Structure formats: C-alpha cells, structure tokens
C-alpha cells in the first residue's frame, strides 16, 4: 500500500481552504449588479389567499419587483416535479398534487411562499416584504400523522380522500399471516419515529444569472446533485433547455439529504433573473430553513413479530403511517416504501414479512430523504421489536440476535422483501462490538453507577443498510423517474497530470481526497498530480449526485471503469512506442511494459504522445488498419450502473447512565463496529461513522420537529427549541471496522455515510429501557428527553 493509495490515511486536501476561510459556498458567490430576493411566507398552516396587495412594497426604496403566484401562472411556469411514483395496493397511482413555486390561491403549510420581493439590497427586500399585504382566510388544519386518516378531519387535497397519498403493500401477506398463526409468541410494539429537521449548518442559497444575448442561465445553488437540479428545474419548471442551463454547486456546507431537491427558491431566482435581466440572489435565514428545508422521518408504526418456542423469528407484520407533509417533495414517496420495507429482514432469517404503508398529507412542511431515509425507520422498528421480544420470551438480546442471524455461508441471500444480500458476517461484527465495548464488564460498571445513585443500561443494535441504490432498470420498474448510475471522466493533460470529473458531489465527505487516492492507485500517477472536479454541470459531463451513501461505490466505481479505459487506450499507444503487440503490454504502477522484457514507458509519456502525436501510427495503405488508426488524446469517460445495492452492516453497543431523580440520560459509552467493505481512507470512514452516530443520538435523545396541533405553527423552529446535539451532549465514539469486501463493485466498497445514523437510535433507546427495566418500563418514545424519562419512571414505579 502506498502512502497515498487505496487504504491509506491521507489527510484531506480540501481542508486547507476551509481552515483558512477560503471555502467558496453559495452565499460567498456574488455577481455584478445582483439584486436580492426575500420571500413573503404564510403564517397560516392552511388558508385561502383572498388577495395580495403589493403596491406599497413595489414602491419601496430599492425594490425591483414584487412577484406572486399569479405572475408564476401568467408566465406558464411548471410545478415542482416528483421523482418517484408509487402504486397503491388497489392498483391506483399515488395522488400527486400540483406544487407551484409560489402559492396560488391557497397555502397549505406555515412557511409556504406567497410572494417574493426583489430589491437592490437584502435589507431593502426584507423591509419591503413587510409592506406586502396578504389577506388570508384561515382554514382548519390537520397536523397529526395519527389523526390525518380519521373521519371528519380537515382535508389537505380534495383528491386525496382521508388525506391518503397512497396505500402501499409489500411482501407476502398470506405467508406472513400463516407464520403468525403458528407462532408460539407474538410481540407487538407501537412506535413513533418523530419528525426531524436536517439542519445542515450552511443554510440553502442560490444565485441565478441569465445572459439574454445567449439565452444561457447559470445557477449557483446549494445542491448535492447539480445535474439533477438542472434536469428537473429546467425541464419541468422553467422550460430552460438543458444545454443552455448551467448549475454550479461550489462548496456545500452539509446536506444530509436536504440539499438533494430542486427547491422552489432556486427556481424563483432563475425565473426572476430571466424576467428582470439582473442576477438574483437568495440565502435562507435559519428560520426559513426550519420551515422550508425538506424534513425527515415522521412515521407512526405498529409492528408485530411472530416467534417460535426457541426465539426464532417466523414472521414480521408492520403497518405504518408516513407523513408526507403538504406536498410531495421530489423523492418523498420512495422513502417510506422501497427504502423502508425492503430493509425489514435486517440481518435475520425471518421467512415471511408483510408491510403496509399509508402515506398521508398534512398541513406541514414536506418530508423527504434525511440521512438514512427510510432505513433508520426500518432499523429502529426492527431493533426495538427484537429487544422487546427478547424481554418477553426471556432470551438475552445478544442471543436472540445470534439465533436469527443469516449465516456467513448463506450468501448470496435472498430476503423475503426483494433484496439479494451479497455478503456478510454478522456474528463477527457483533463479536467485535461486544469485545470493544467490554460487554462482559458491564455488570461491574452497572453496580458502580448504582452506588452513585444512577441507573446504568446497555443496548444493542445490529443494523443493515442498502446503499448505492441500483440498478436503474429495476428502479424504473419500481417507479423511479431517474437513473441511478454515476459517471466519471478521466482526462490526462499533455504534461501527464490528470483531471477527473465526477458526477458525485461532496458536501463534506472528502471526495477530492478519496477519489484521488483511487485514481493514483489505479493509474500509478502521483496523488498530487490528480485533481477532482465535481459540482458543475458546465464542467462535469453528467451526474446523479451524492445521496444514499453512493459516492464511492457508484461514483468511485465509474472512476475505476474510466481508468480501465485509460489503460486500454494507453496500451495501444505504448505498444506503438515500444514496437510491441498490444497483447504483450502489461500495465502496473504507472508503467506500460512489454511482457518478459525490461522495455517500458510511463503513463505520463504515453499521455504526452497522445496529445503530441508525432510518434504515432501513420498511413499504411491497409484500409482496415487505417480505418482503425489510433486516435490522439487520452481522455475517457465511463458510466457505472451497479447491478445491485451493497449492504453495509454493523453492530452497535450503547451504554447510558440515567439519573432517576431528573430523568437526564447521559450516553456513557458508544461502540460502533461497521462493515463497509474495503476502505479507501480509514480516517474519512471513521469520521463519517462518528458524525452519523451523533446524528442518531440526536434523534434518540434530543431532536424533535414539533408543531402546534391546532394551528400548525412550528414550535421547534429555531436552535432555541430544536435541540441539536452539542459537544457536551455526546461522548467520544469508539468506532472500528470489520472488512467483508463487496463483490458487486470493482472497489469492493459499501456505503458508510448513513450507517451511524441508522444504527444508533435503537441502541440508545434499548439501553435506556434496559436502565429503567427495574421499574418495569417497557417503552419510551424518541426523543428520550429528561421529562419523558422522568415521567416513565414515575408512571412505572409501583406505588410505595
């Protein structure tokens, strides 16, 4: 292993600009003559917009324009598109309501834009927004996920009876019912997977610049996938042709899913720039981010597990209501369906599984993929259910998992919920987690806590994930309206250095470092001679972007494929230079050599020859040979469409200490063992896992998107009320890896970006329930706030 190749801990090359204040985020982008947009947003969760008087705002200092939904309609702009369609159990398509970029006639959630003020300065736009007089007729609102399908509640959309967007079924209902009929024990849990608000620390932002002389639009926006933004906004909303539309996402300050989508504000900036002939800039204030960034989770679930007399799982039946919010965000329908129920087998051999999911509309901010997206909900359900079952049948939580693990020799393993697992050794990861967490020493630590008046508990979860969504052909059959491949181009420059163009887009994951390690390893080019370019449709050929932990397994594999093409072309040039047959050329460590000789040529010389082709094959007179004459240049492009998902998995152990007097829970120790296949840069992988685990601890203990149930006001709408994990809320994370290479891609890698967030919430809650087991507490909803824990203790404590 070289110091900069695959497997090496290479310090990140992107750090220098970030630690020096020279990052280039969208709000740092300024265009000459730019003006600023400020949105007027609905303070009502549900209301008819009776009238909007823009006169005073339009006359205010510096105001260039005040635009409303009527202007959007008059200009014939399309609505925001949905990228995945779901079919209900009765065969009907999901309800897909229109979503104009500025509300027309009716608003359906607090924060929905009703007008945009565009002015010379930010303050002028904001001041003038105060002067836009909107007359609303407030309507009753439905907020609660649970109540949304009840009779007589307010309806968000006329077409969606009982507020149901779709009612989806998956798995084998008959086989599952049979399994329950012969079960010796059935465990049932009712769970809430609460609404979360992603909160990347960089607020969303966009700057649009339209050149009327060429018809070209350039949009800088905070996006995890600028090509998708270009396609969706260009074709569906703006009618801006793809070849005249450049979308640039420079440095992106975190995304966690929330920056995948083609947001209305980006479209509005483009539209206004085209209409007004000046560049238009908008940056969200955090208050706007809370209201308008796509939220995550928000499920209510009943789950039942059928077991035989030995604690083996016979069947799993799950019924979920998933809140979509007021409109369908781009990938919202996918999250509680194919990214959720397909994970219900977990690491276990459960033979029969059936899931029913009702997706519902409410007068709340739209919900979409947020770190993990469906898989945390699946894992929380399964790992909580298993722990509850273990308690009920009197089996140790470790043992019950081991009894049901898919055996290492059973791969490839077909689950009853569509997925074909490629590889795994689940027992090995659990062994390592128990060892690293000193599981055996827990009892002594528990006693020590007890002596100090604290309740100590330990919890396990053994999560699995499906990452690198694939393949496009199957996804298309399941409702996808986009491909799931990734592209790469490797361009040698004449002087031997390399520019790599990837359709993935880092928003903190360190692609510039990891991808360069891969290229250096594959092509033997010095690491420092390789540049990675991402996030610009004007430079990168095509891309799907970064989501679902796909960048390395899909984007990285495209890079490997392109490097193979480079080697193939290079061999032809080398064969000519070395006067040998192509079949006799071997490539290794950056050199093309003639087999069995000491004759070789470095890839840098080959590149130079490719661009200065003085020593190149010339006219031979043989028509066949002349027709196939070697092309100049050394620049290859590849697309990689994976044949299957990949399946990272792990074993997590959490230890908590609860103060029974205050209900405060402290995460005392957290151990995460992950198997993400081969590792390119261990430092980055561990960083992803640590960050993910803390985000999951945030869900378990702290975070909650709370609406006032009557009025639909977002009550946890700032950092004063939405409790983000802070440094003093969490411990250091002990992370380690087992390595089972993935056979489905040339790097043998699996996704690592979401594992921590998926695996940690059930481990934390299982640990708290364990700590409180002396009081008979069997259930706690997330977030396990001090108040909830304290109340659970009070309610469960037998009257003295």
């Amino acid at each position: 292993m070289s110091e900069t190749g695959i497997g090496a801990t290479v310090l990140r090359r992107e750090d220098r600009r970030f630690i020096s204040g020279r990052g280039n985020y969208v709000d740092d982008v300024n265009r000459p003559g730019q003006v600023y947009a400020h949105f007027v947003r609905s303070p009502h969760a549900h209301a008819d917009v009776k009238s909007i008087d823009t006169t005073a705002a339009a006359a205010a200092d510096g105001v260039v324009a005040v635009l409303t939904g009527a202007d959007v309609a008059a200009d014939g702009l399309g609505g925001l598109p949905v990228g995945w369609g779901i079919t209900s159990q009765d065969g009907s398509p999901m309800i897909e309501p229109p979503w104009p970029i500025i509300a027309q006639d009716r608003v359906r959630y607090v924060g929905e834009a009703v007008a945009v003020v565009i002015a010379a300065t930010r303050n002028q736009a904001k001041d003038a927004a105060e002067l836009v007089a909107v007359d609303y007729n407030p309507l009753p609102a439905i907020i609660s996920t649970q109540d949304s399908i009840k009779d007589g509640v307010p309806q968000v959309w006329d077409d969606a009876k009982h507020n149901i967007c779709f009612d989806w079924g998956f798995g084998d209902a008959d086989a599952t019912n049979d399994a329950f009929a012969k079960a010796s024990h059935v465990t049932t849990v009712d769970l809430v997977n609460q609404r979360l608000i992603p909160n990347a620390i960089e607020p969303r932002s966009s700057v649009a610049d339209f050149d009327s002389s060429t018809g070209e639009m350039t949009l800088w926006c905070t996006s995890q996938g600028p090509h998708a933004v270009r396609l969706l906004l260009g074709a569906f909303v703006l009618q801006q042709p793809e070849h005249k539309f450049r979308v640039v996402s420079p440095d992106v300050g975190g995304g966690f899913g929330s920056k995948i989508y083609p947001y209305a504000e980006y479209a509005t900036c483009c539209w206004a720039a085209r209409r007004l002939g000046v560049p238009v800039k908008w940056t969200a204030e955090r208050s706007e981010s809370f209201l308008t960034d796509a939220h995550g989770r928000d499920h209510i679930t009943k789950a039942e597990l059928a077991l035989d007399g030995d604690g083996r799982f016979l069947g799993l039946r799950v019924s979920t209501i998933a809140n979509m919010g007021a409109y369908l965000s781009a990938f919202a329908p996918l999250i509680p369906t194919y990214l959720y129920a397909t994970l219900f087998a977990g690491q276990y051999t459960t033979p029969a599984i059936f899931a029913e999911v009702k997706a519902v509309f409410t007068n709340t901010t739209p919900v979409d993929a947020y770190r993990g997206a469906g898989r945390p909900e699946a894992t929380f359900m399964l790992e909580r259910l298993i722990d509850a079952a273990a308690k009920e049948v009197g089996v140790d939580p470790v043992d019950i998992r081991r009894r049901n693990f898919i055996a290492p020799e059973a791969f490839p393993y077909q689950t009853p919920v569509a997925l074909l697992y490629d590889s795994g050794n689940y027992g090995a990861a659990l062994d390592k987690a128990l060892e690293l967490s000193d599981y055996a020493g827990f009892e002594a630590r528990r006693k020590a806590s007890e002596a100090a008046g604290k309740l100590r508990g330990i919890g396990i979860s053994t999560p699995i994930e499906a990452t690198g969504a694939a393949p496009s052909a199957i996804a298309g059959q399941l409702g996808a309206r986009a491909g799931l491949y990734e592209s790469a181009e490797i361009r040698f420059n004449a002087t031997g250095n390399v520019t790599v163009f990837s359709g993935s887009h880092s928003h903190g994951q360190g692609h510039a470092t990891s991808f360069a390690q891969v290229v250096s390893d594959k092509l033997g080019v010095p690491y420092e001679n390789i540049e990675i370019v991402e996030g610009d449709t004007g430079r990168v050929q095509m891309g799907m972007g970064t989501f679902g932990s796909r960048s390395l397994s899909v984007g990285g594999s495209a890079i490997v494929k392109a490097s193979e093409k480079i080697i193939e072309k290079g061999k032809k040039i080398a064969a000519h230079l070395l006067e040998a047959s192509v079949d006799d050329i071997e490539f290794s460590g950056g050199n093309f050599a003639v087999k069995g000789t000491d004759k070789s040529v470095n890839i840098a010389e080959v590149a130079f020859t490719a661009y200065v082709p003085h020593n190149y094959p010339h006219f031979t007179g043989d028509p066949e040979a002349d027709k196939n004459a070697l092309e100049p240049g050394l620049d290859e492009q590849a697309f990689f469409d994976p044949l299957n998902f990949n399946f990272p998995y792990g074993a997590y152990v959490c230890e908590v200490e609860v103060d029974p007097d205050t209900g405060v829970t402290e995460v005392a120790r957290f151990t995460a063992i992950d198997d993400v296949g081969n590792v390119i840069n261990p430092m980055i992988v561990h960083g992803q896992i640590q960050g993910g685990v803390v985000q999951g601890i945030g869900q378990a203990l702290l975070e909650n998107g709370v609406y006032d149930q009557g009025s639909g006001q977002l009550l946890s709408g700032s950092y004063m009320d939405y409790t983000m994990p802070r440094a003093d809320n969490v411990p250091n994370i002990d992370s380690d890896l087992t390595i089972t290479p993935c056979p489905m891609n040339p790097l043998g890698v699996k996704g690592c970006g979401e594992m921590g967030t998926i695996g940690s919430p059930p481990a934390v809650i299982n640990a708290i329930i364990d700590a409180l087991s002396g009081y008979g507490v069997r259930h706690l909803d997330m977030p396990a706030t001090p108040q909830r824990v304290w109340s659970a203790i009070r309610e469960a404590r037998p009257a003295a």
Partner: protein
Amino acid sequence: MEIKGEYRIPAPRETVWQALNDADVLRECIPGCESLEKVSDTELTATVKAKVGPVSAKFSGAVTLEDLNPPESYRIAGEGKGGVAGFAKGGAVVHLADDGGETILTYEADAKVGGKIAQIGSRLIQGTARKLADQFFRNFAEKVAPGSTQGENAA
C-alpha cells in the same frame, strides 16, 4: 392556555363599564398601543407594538367588543397582522360584579400567534400574554380608580 385575573376597583360598576367602552381609556391601557380609533360602538382599529422574546413587531388590526351584556360583561377581542413577524390574536372575557359600591373585575384571556413570532417565541407566548393581560387590567384599574392596584396581584 388559561390566563385569569381579578381586581377590586373602588368605583361603581357603571363607571367601570363606561370606561371599558371608552376608546381613550383603552388606548391608554393597552400595553404598546400606538393608536386606537373607534369605527363603531363595538369596532375599533388599532396599532400595537409588542415584543415576544427576540421578535418585536408592530401589529395593526381590529379590536372588537362582543357579547355585550351591560354593565356586567363583554368580550374584548383583537386580531393584528405584524408583517413578517406573523399575526397575533387574542381576547378576554371581562366580568364585572357589584360589591358594596365597588367593583370586582375578573377576566379570562387567551392568545394565539402565528408565523415567525410563534416559531421563535413559542415558549414565551404564554408568559408574554399573561404579562400583557395583567398589565392592561392593572393600567385599567389604575386609570378608573387611581391607587386601586396598590398591593394587588393577578391570580
């Protein structure tokens, strides 16, 4: 949200009732009131400046007097728009009881807010509403019978 209070005002009930219907008195007693104009006997327009936690805004809107039962009780209700800060509405049922030539005023108030003021200040709304209601009735009692609120406290 339940906000209640009680004041003993050393003045006859009829006097107190008149004051409760007097725009000038209301203007002086509503905390942060910048203007209050009578449109009819039961409808007024007002501009009120208020602050909830970090959000301060000027609300303009209507004040209405409802369920009039002179000289015993009415409901005073207000609804105002505060621009980007959102909206606020609220009211109080006021009851006057005759007690040996003096008047016992009791009230029960409620408040609702929306938009930014709810988003940022939700935790503080109840406390703010309680404070504003108490301040209004204290001002009112003081206005009708100076010195009457010495040592009094809202429930």
